[in-house]
């Protein structure tokens, strides 16, 4: 059976792969949106934190023999701590000045991280094995889908929806949101706003690291994996609307699927389709699909 002249196997197969990619876009743009929405900082280092998370998992396995399931917890904790350090020592100084400096600072941090890991590990990447419980593949008829990739989609959906729920539907989330709208007032209520901000950044960093661990068995763990992804994630966030968390999740997934479809019909364009959509969205709805003009 053919759709537009393409066999349905290829079509569904690419769609599914696109969904997997979309899960990563969703998780990363979620972290970025959380940090921007609540801190006003565009965290260019988000890709680097994702990469460091993957490397923590790799080093944990390679040097200490600690497996994947532990790494899912260890990596976010390690990178989250790193996030705390970054926020306290560096980002804190920049809140009062032009936000472009925050972008430039995190850009510099991303370069530092990439350089250090490139020096240590080279560029061609290390492979990380799929955890035993998730090995193997299922023959879906139209393609053979490695079980691990299905797990990734499932896990990232859980994480994304969980985060959205915490921020939009719980008291903690409400406090966070209030803290960024009017820090002085919230502080007057006795809530330690700087501490809140610090943990928010750490939380975003932890999310990125979690995405990194999930990604490790799928793609090569390389120092460049973050920078390859971060600009696409920026585009996703711009399309979805900078302050909107739900927007980032939905847009991330949708864009992964669109990219997958492009690979079927016009593979050369798959790299640029995200940006083309961004340009179009900006012409029609400058605030993004789900965004609110701040």
């Amino acid at each position, binding site marked *: 059976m053919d759709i537009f002249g393409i066999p349905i196997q290829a079509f569904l197969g690419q769609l599914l792969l696109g969904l997997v990619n979309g899960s990563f876009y969703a998780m990363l743009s979620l972290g970025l949106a959380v940090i921007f929405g609540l801190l006003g900082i565009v965290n260019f280092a988000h890709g680097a934190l994702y990469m460091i998370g993957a490397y923590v998992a790799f080093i944990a396995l390679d040097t200490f023999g600690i497996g994947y399931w532990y790494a899912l917890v260890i990596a976010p904790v390690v990178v989250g701590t790193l996030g705390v350090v970054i926020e306290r020592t560096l980002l804190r100084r*920049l809140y009062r000045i032009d936000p472009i400096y925050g972008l*430039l600072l995190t850009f510099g941090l991303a370069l530092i991280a990439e*350089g250090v890991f*490139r020096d240590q590990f080279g560029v061609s990447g290390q492979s990380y094995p799929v955890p035993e419980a998730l090995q193997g593949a299922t023959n879906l008829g139209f393609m053979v889908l490695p079980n691990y990739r299905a797990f990734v989609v499932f896990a990232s959906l859980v994480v994304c929806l969980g985060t959205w729920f915490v921020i939009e539907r719980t008291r903690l989330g409400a406090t966070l949101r209030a803290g960024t709208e009017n820090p002085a007032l919230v502080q007057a209520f006795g809530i330690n706003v700087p501490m809140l901000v610090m943990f928010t950044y750490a939380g975003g960093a932890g999310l990125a690291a979690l995405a990194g661990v999930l990604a490790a068995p799928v793609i090569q763990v390389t120092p460049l994996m973050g920078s390859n992804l971060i600009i696409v994630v920026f585009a996703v966030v711009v399309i979805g609307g900078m302050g909107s968390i739900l927007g980032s999740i939905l847009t991330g997934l949708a864009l992964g699927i669109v990219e997958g479809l492009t690979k079927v019909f016009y593979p050369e364009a798959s790299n640029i389709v995200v940006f083309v959509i961004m*340009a179009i969205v900006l012409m029609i709805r400058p605030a993004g699909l789900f965004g609110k003009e701040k």
Partner: protein
Amino acid sequence: MATHSGIERLSRIGLVVGLLILLAAPFIGLYPVFMMKALCYAIFACAFNLLLGYTGLLSFGHAAFLGAAAYATGWLVRSAGWPPELGILAGMAFGGLLGLGVGLIAIRRQGIYFAMITLALAQMIYFVWLEAPFTGGEDGLQGVPRGKLFGFLSLESDLVLYYVVVAVFVAVFLFIVRIVHSPFGQVLKAIRENEPRAISLGYDVDRYKLLAFVLSAALAGLGGSMKTLVLGFATLNDAHWSLSGEVILMTLLGGMGTFAGPVIGAFTIIGLQDFLADRVGAWVTVIIGAIFVVCVVAFRRGFVGELKAWLQRRANYTASRSVSKDAGQ
């Protein structure tokens, strides 16, 4: 020396000294190819500074214009047989045209969004170059001949080409000085200082921003075109986002909103990369990143900016001392 008019004189002397060093460079042991490369990037940085330092717009994808012009010039000179001067002009025009396209989309948003959009659009353009057959993709567009300038001046010799590059650089530098001091430049500065007020004064702010953007893109393209002639190739590196980041650093490090700042920043960064590349390998990236961090946290005014501020403080001090002396102790 530590008076306000003294500062003026000092900067003028500084510029003259800089020019003399440039003119004498090949004879005092500086490698001409390195100098030419640095001058091309200095043109790039000056063009970028026009946008960031004087108009207050952070374009995070400026390498797109340098790369576009580099490829255009490279292809026209190599495959279409165009003479170098026409190739350069065409490259500039192509850069400016691309700037118009990007600007029209990006100007709709301000501040940080503007930066992210320019980054994303530049990345899109990068992928277009990656796929387009004429650029040679990963292999780059190679074998660009230097040709004869205006039909008679052969540019094959490094020395001859060097002085041509110096001439172009000086022209660009003076042109930017002229723009900044013109009424147009004053409006740009007003937009940087306080955009709502500029709007309330009746200026079509978007039109001015777009024009500055196109101008900056065209001049960035000029840097790219010249670089292609000097080195004989145009590659994906010329359009990569890391170059966009580097030009921001050059401008920041040298001094945003100053004339000499971007030039000094460009020479420093290019020199550093050249010097360190063999010795420390991947650590060059780390060092560049560290300089970024240090600059943003503690050195926002850059070399020239800090120098000016220091001299300013001395001048104020001297002035206030002489005033209090006159007031009769």
